[in-house]
């Protein structure tokens, strides 16, 4: 079968450029096969889906943003990142985006890429982690909160500043202790306390132009794609439910009130999809921050609205653990607050536009 992990891996190994539709189909098949309600429920109880991860890694998906010679896709960034939209649609309970971001940081700094799930730190607005030189080696200390999948990562790509220069450190498991936390979807969001001695081969200056703001922007762009995917999933699920569920002698989707709710859901998920794609393009275009801010703000705003409408149309059954709707809605209600909520990105955009001034407002919007 064309879409198997083995095929995909061979294709990457050969360095052949994959087409967007093929990578999307590969992801769709892989996620669709593995992401069962049973697996999602187990993940919520803390079981890391190791077999699923192995299949994802075998297909080369975590290397989406690294150069082709390091196992990357060899296709435009926006197309490579399509896999995160597909992952969002299936509520994939794995640190795929985090490993993609960590690999991007590490590869950009010229550091080796460990196999296995990775994550990034810091992700919030914590005090900076302290990176000091000790002889020929380095030492990293400090705490990072809300680190996604911290407990499951074999290594963390840490961004820390040394004498004003953004540096990337690869900290393997053992170089930090983990205090468990989670988001509303029970995805791990852990606090990591670092006390790590690092060899010279584990620390290097970040790629030119990469700093904490870029890492936050990349995270925001990735969550936007995941949210857009999750909303596409909601639309599909909720539309089908409305055609299936009968009340008052006909499918509820035949009632105009329900049709209009679904139309609103559809419109906002379409806007979210467009904004998220714009954000993904901006990642590939030097991490231009304006479209990424638009993406996170627009998808974040749509997330709550679409989750609410999906629940309303599903009625009581959608509020049960038994029904799988909540695997998507709980993620949406969490992801909208991660890597900056709508207010944070709106504030950034608004201050930028106000500083540019009224007569440049339209120019700023069209040039972004």
């Amino acid at each position, binding site marked *: 079968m064309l879409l198997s992990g083995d095929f995909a891996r061979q294709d990457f190994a050969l360095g052949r450029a994959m087409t967007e539709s093929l990578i999307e189909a590969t992801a769709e098949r892989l996620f669709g096969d593995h992401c069962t309600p049973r697996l999602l429920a187990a993940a919520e109880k803390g079981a890391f889906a190791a077999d699923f991860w192995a299949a994802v890694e075998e297909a080369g998906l975590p290397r989406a943003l690294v150069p082709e010679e390091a196992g990357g896709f060899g296709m435009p960034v*926006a197309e490579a990142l399509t896999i995160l939209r597909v992952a969002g649609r299936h509520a994939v309970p794995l640190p795929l985006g985090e490993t993609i971001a960590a690999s991007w940081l590490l590869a950009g700094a010229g550091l080796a890429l460990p196999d296995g799930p990775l994550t990034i730190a810091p992700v919030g607005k914590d005090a900076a982690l302290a990176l000091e030189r000790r002889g020929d080696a380095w030492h990293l200390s400090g705490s990072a909160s809300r680190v996604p999948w911290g407990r499951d990562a074999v290594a963390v790509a840490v961004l820390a500043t040394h004498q004003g220069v953004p540096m990337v450190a690869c900290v393997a498991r053992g170089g930090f202790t983990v205090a468990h936390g989670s988001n509303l979807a029970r995805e791990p969001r852990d606090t990591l306390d670092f006390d790590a001695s690092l060899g010279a081969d584990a620390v290097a200056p970040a790629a030119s132009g990469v700093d904490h703001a870029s890492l936050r922007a990349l995270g925001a762009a990735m969550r936007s794609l995941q949210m857009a995917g999750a909303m*596409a999933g909601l*639309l*599909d699920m909720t*539309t*089908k439910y*409305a*055609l299936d569920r009968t009340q008052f002698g006909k499918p509820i*989707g*035949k009632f*105009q009130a*329900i*049709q*209009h709710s*679904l*139309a*609103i859901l*559809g*419109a*906002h*998920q*379409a*806007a979210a*999809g*467009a*904004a998220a*794609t*714009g954000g993904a*393009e901006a990642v590939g275009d030097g991490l231009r921050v*304006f*479209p990424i*801010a*638009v993406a996170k*703000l*627009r998808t974040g*705003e749509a997330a709550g609205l679409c989750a609410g409408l999906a629940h309303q149309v599903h009625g009581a059954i959608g509020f049960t653990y038994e029904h799988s709707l909540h695997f998507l809605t709980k993620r949406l209600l969490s992801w909208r607050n991660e890597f900056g909520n*709508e*207010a944070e*990105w*709106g*504030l*950034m*955009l*608004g*201050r*930028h*536009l*106000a*500083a540019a*001034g*009224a*007569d440049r*407002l*339209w120019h*700023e*919007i*069209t040039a*972004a």
Partner: protein
Amino acid sequence: MVDLPFAPPPPCPEAETLRLEVRDFLAEALADRTPAQRAESWSGHDAAFSRKVGAKGWIGMTWPKQYGGHERRALERYVVLEEMLAAGAPVSHHWIADRQSGPLILRVGTDEQKERILPRIARGEAMFCIGMSEPDSGSDLAATRTRAEAVQGGFVVNGTKLWTSGAHQADFMILFCRTGGGERHEGTSQFLVDLKATSSIQIRPVHALTGEHHFNEVVFTDVFLPETALLGKLGDGWNQVTSELAYERSGPERFLSSFLIMTEMLRVIGPEPSERAAIAIGRLAAHIHALRRMSRSVAGMLQAGENPALQAALVKELGNSLEQEIPEIARLLVDCEPSLESDDAFLATLSLITLHAPSFSLRGGTREIMRGMIARGLGLR
């Protein structure tokens, strides 16, 4: 998989060069236009301005040169449209003809109609109005009652059109009416009516709630139209009119009608806004940015010859709500009492647009009709 796809807009580098040219032109052409006049947006009327736009080659941009067009790309035309709206240019003399009447004539008209009418539109010299709505046929277009009876050498029309914007200024109307038997969608046709050369058409003003005269009631009493006035195929009116609506609904005028408030609000708020104001402005700008992307995606679909009726409905649904939300946010961010007489640019703009806002989700197909179309696209109807 139920899906409402928006492909990324096709790249069009030429459009950005053109954009600067349009901005320079508008800076000069609109220098004397007050903020309140600019706030009229695409209902602002100035025949001389439209002739200047025509002379620049910015009307009928995508049409064949043979008919006075310029064979440019849909995304280039899009840039001209959005720059006009963002600047508050008085475009109503050419807007409807450029947007939907011209493309319709190009698609279904006879060679004679195309040769006679399209170059006039492209020069900015032929204003069109849309003869669709009637007293008993608003959202329900298929309930149209105006009828054209075939007679020797042509047709005789009887009936009343209502809410016809600009009929009192227009040179032509594209009339949608019954020509045959059958139910609802059957037996309808479209006609190209030369309003200036046809006798016994009565055009009466219907004043809007502001007192402004944009709408009209247009009464046809035994009005004779020659055979050459038939536009497209006899009896094919429903297909023609529904395809026309995709052009009517997807453009930047469906989310930029109140953009001028954004500009004036930012001027009042200044370079160091409060946190609350900055968040609100950033949010609105993000919504505009996302809608622009969707709307340019539709322009790309039109360019590729696809039918984006569903995507157009999505743009209009979201865009109209945004246009209506902008004045609501502005009035909370800037403490003020709106007044149409105000000399203040922000207040004058806010006042006019606050009063125009209810029409945004009525004109060009109501919000409820758009939601019905989207539901149909989802397979619910």
